C-alpha cells in the first residue's frame, strides 16, 4: 500500500511496527520485519520519485530529492554543505552505491572502548553483509564501466604501487552513465527505492511519502504512535499507531530532532556528531578524460585509510557542480569550463576527529561542525597524496581550489598542498556520511540508545540508523548501516514487546 502525502487527506491507522525513514536503515528494517508477517508502515518525509523522472539536471534534482534543496549546511568556522537524500529510498537514491564492510580496526574500539561487542557482534554483521551483498548484486566495478577517470586511478596505483582498487557497488548492469548523484536513470543502482522497499511493499508494508514525522506519542514508557503532517494542501495530519514498536531511522541529522521533540531527554542527544568531510582536487590531463562516461565512483585508494585516516575516491560530478568551483570570472571562468573535458576529480574522504552537534532551533535544524587542527593536518596530507596520484597517472596540472594556494600546481609542486592554510575556510568541503547523534551505550549516562537498540528508559522506541554509531566508520557507511539495521530488526522482531 502506498499513501502519497502530497495528495492524501487525514490518516489514522495501526500497524505492528512503524518505521520513520526509508533510507538504508529504514528500508532494511522494513525488509526484515515485513518477512515476519507483521504489519509495517514506513514514513518518508520526501516524495516517491519514479526513476523514469530522474533528471540529468542538478537543480530540479536537488529540489525534488535532496534535503534543503541541496542547500543544507553545517555551521562552524566554515559553512560545509551536508548532502542528504530526502525522497523514498533516502540517500541510497542519490549516492554512488559504494559498499564497504566495516573494517575490523574500526569495530575493535566499538567493542573494547564502548562495550558494544555483544550488541553489534562482528560475526553477525558479516552474515548480514553476506546476505545483503547477494540480494543487492554487490560486486567490484568491472573495467568495462570504469570510464577514463576511474582507469586513471588504476594507472596511478600501478605507477605508485599503493593500495587502491575498483570499488564494490550495489549495481546491476551499470550502463556507466555517471549519473548516480541525480538518481540512476536505468535503475541499475540497487537503491532502496528499487529493492527493499518494493520487497517490503509486496509483503504488505505501507509506504507513506511526503509524510513528515513530527512527534512520537507515549503511554508511560511505551511509544504508541508517530504523528505528523502530510505535504498536501492544508497539511492534513497523519497518525501511524504502533502496536509493537516504533523504529527511528531518520538519519543522524533528523533522528535526534524527532527524539527531542518527542520528549527524549539525554545530554548526549544531538551531541557527538561525526562525519567524513570530503574535499576534492581536479587533475587536468593532456588528453580528454570525459568524466561524464563511467561509473560515478568506480575506484578508490585506501592506502592511508587506517593510519592516515583518509581515503581517496574518484568521482564524476555534473557540469553544474564542477563549474561553481572553477577559478575565475567572465572569460577566464568560461575558458576553465572548456577545460573540464580534460579533467578528472578525485576527492579526499577523511575520518575526522571532530565532533559537532545537531539541534532543533526555531529556524530549523542547526548543525555545528568544525574540523580540529589534527583533521586539517590529515586533510592536507590527503590532498598532497591525491595530487601525487594525479601526477602518477599523467596529469599535467592539478587545480586545488584552495584559498591561499596557486590556482594550478605542476608536477613536483605537490608539497605545496601541505603548506595550505590550517584554516577550514580555505577549503571547499562537503559532509556526506553522518554519525553519532543518538549513540549506543551500555549505561544510560553515556548515550541515548541501549544495547538492545531501545532508547534508554523506554520499552519499544528503537533507533536503528547511524545515529547510534559510537564513531565514524572510515569507509562509506551504507553497508554498515544496513548490516546494523538488519541485526537490530532481527533482534526487535524476536523481542517480547
Amino acid at each position, binding site marked *: 500500500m502506498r499513501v502519497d502525502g502530497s495528495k492524501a487527506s487525514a490518516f489514522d491507522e495501526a500497524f505492528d511496527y512503524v518505521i520513520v525513514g526509508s533510507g538504508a536503515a529504514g528500508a532494511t528494517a522494513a525488509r526484515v520485519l515485513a518477512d515476519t508477517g507483521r504489519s509495517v508502515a514506513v514514513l518518508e518525509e520526501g516524495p516517491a520519485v519514479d526513476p523514469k523522472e530522474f533528471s*540529468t*539536471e*542538478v*537543480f530540479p534534482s*536537488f*529540489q525534488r530529492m535532496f534535503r*534543503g*534543496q541541496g*542547500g543544507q549546511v553545517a555551521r562552524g568556522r*566554515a*559553512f560545509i554543505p551536508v548532502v542528504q537524500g530526502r525522497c523514498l529510498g533516502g540517500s541510497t537514491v542519490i549516492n554512488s552505491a559504494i559498499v564497504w564492510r566495516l573494517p575490523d580496526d574500526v569495530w575493535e574500539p566499538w567493542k573494547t572502548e564502548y562495550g558494544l561487542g555483544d550488541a553489534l557482534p562482528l560475526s553477525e554483521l558479516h552474515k548480514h553483509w553476506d546476505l545483503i551483498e547477494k540480494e543487492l548484486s554487490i560486486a567490484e566495478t568491472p573495467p568495462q564501466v570504469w570510464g577514463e577517470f576511474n582507469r586513471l586511478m588504476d594507472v596511478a596505483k600501478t605507477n605508485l604501487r599503493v593500495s587502491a582498487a575498483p570499488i564494490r557497488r550495489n549495481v546491476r548492469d551499470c550502463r556507466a*552513465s555517471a549519473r548516480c548523484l541525480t538518481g540512476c536513470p536505468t535503475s541499475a543502482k540497487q537503491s532502496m527505492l528499487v529493492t527493499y522497499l518494493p520487497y517490503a511493499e509486496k509483503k504488505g508494508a505501507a509506504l507513506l511519502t511526503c509524510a513528515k514525522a513530527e512527534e512520537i506519542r507515549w503511554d508511560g514508557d511505551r511509544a504508541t504512535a508517530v504523528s505528523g503532517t502530510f505535504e498536501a494542501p492544508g497539511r492534513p495530519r497523519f497518525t501511524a499507531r504502533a502496536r509493537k514498536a516504533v523504529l527511528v531511522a531518520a538519519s543522524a541529522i533528523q533522528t535526534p530532532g524527532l527524539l527531542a521533540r518527542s520528549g527524549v531527554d539525554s545530554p548526549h542527544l544531538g551531541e557527538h556528531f561525526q562525519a567524513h568531510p570530503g574535499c576534492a582536487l581536479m587533475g587536468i590531463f593532456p588528453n*580528454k578524460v*570525459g568524466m*561524464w*562516461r563511467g561509473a560515478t565512483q568506480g575506484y578508490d585508494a585506501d592506502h592511508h585509510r587506517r593510519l592516515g585516516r583518509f581515503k581517496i575516491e574518484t568521482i564524476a560530478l*555534473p*557540469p*553544474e*557542480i*564542477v*563549474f*561553481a*568551483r572553477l*577559478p*575565475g*570570472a*567572465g*572569460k*577566464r*571562468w*568560461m*575558458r576553465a*569550463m*572548456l577545460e*573540464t*573535458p580534460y579533467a578528472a576529480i578525485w576527492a579526499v574522504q577523511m575520518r575526522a576527529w571532530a565532533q559537532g552537534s545537531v539541534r532543533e532551533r526555531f529556524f530549523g535544524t542547526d548543525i555545528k561542525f568544525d574540523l580540529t587542527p589534527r583533521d586539517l593536518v590529515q586533510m592536507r596530507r590527503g590532498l598532497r597524496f591525491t595530487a601525487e596520484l594525479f601526477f602518477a597517472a599523467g596529469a599535467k596540472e592539478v587545480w586545488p581550489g584552495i*584559498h591561499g594556494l596557486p590556482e594550478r600546481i605542476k608536477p613536483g609542486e605537490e608539497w605545496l598542498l601541505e603548506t595550505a592554510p590550517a584554516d577550514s*575556510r580555505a577549503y*571547499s568541503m562537503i559532509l556526506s556520511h553522518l554519525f553519532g547523534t543518538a549513540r549506543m551505550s551500555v549505561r544510560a549516562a553515556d548515550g541515548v540508545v541501549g544495547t538492545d537498540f531501545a532508547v534508554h528508559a523506554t520499552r519499544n522506541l528503537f533507533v536503528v540508523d547511524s545515529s547510534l554509531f559510537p564513531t565514524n566508520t572510515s569507509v562509506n557507511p551504507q553497508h554498515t548501516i544496513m548490516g546494523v539495521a538488519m541485526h537490530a530488526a532481527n533482534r526487535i522482531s524476536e523481542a517480547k514487546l
Partner: protein
Amino acid sequence: MNARSRAVIEALIPQGGQPPLPGAFESGFDDFYARFQNTALPSMRLGFRAALWAAAWLSPLLIGRVPPLSRLSSEDRERALEAMGASRSYHVRQLLLLLKAVISFHYGAHPAVRRALEFPS
C-alpha cells in the same frame, strides 16, 4: 532583475566571451531566474540576492573603483569579480561562490554548454 544585477550576470558569463559557449542571457538565464524565484527556498533566494548586491556594490571597491559594477568597463567588471574570489574575507569569497553556484545550476545544464563539453545526451 534590475540592470545592476544583469550587469553582474553578464560580467560572469559574457556573450561572445568564449565561443562556442553562449552568454548567460543568450542561454536563457531570465527563464531560469524566474523559476528560481518561484521555487527555490527563501534562504537560497535571499543568499543569491545578497551575492548579487555584493557583486554590484562591493566588488568595484576591491579594485579601487567606484561602484556599481555596471559603471565599469567589461575588463574591470571581470577584475572586480575576480577580486571577490581572491578576497581575504571568507564571507566575500562565499558570496561569489554562491553566485557562481546558482548561475551554474542554469548554465551547466544548458544543451549548448553540454554539447561544447561533449556531455552525453
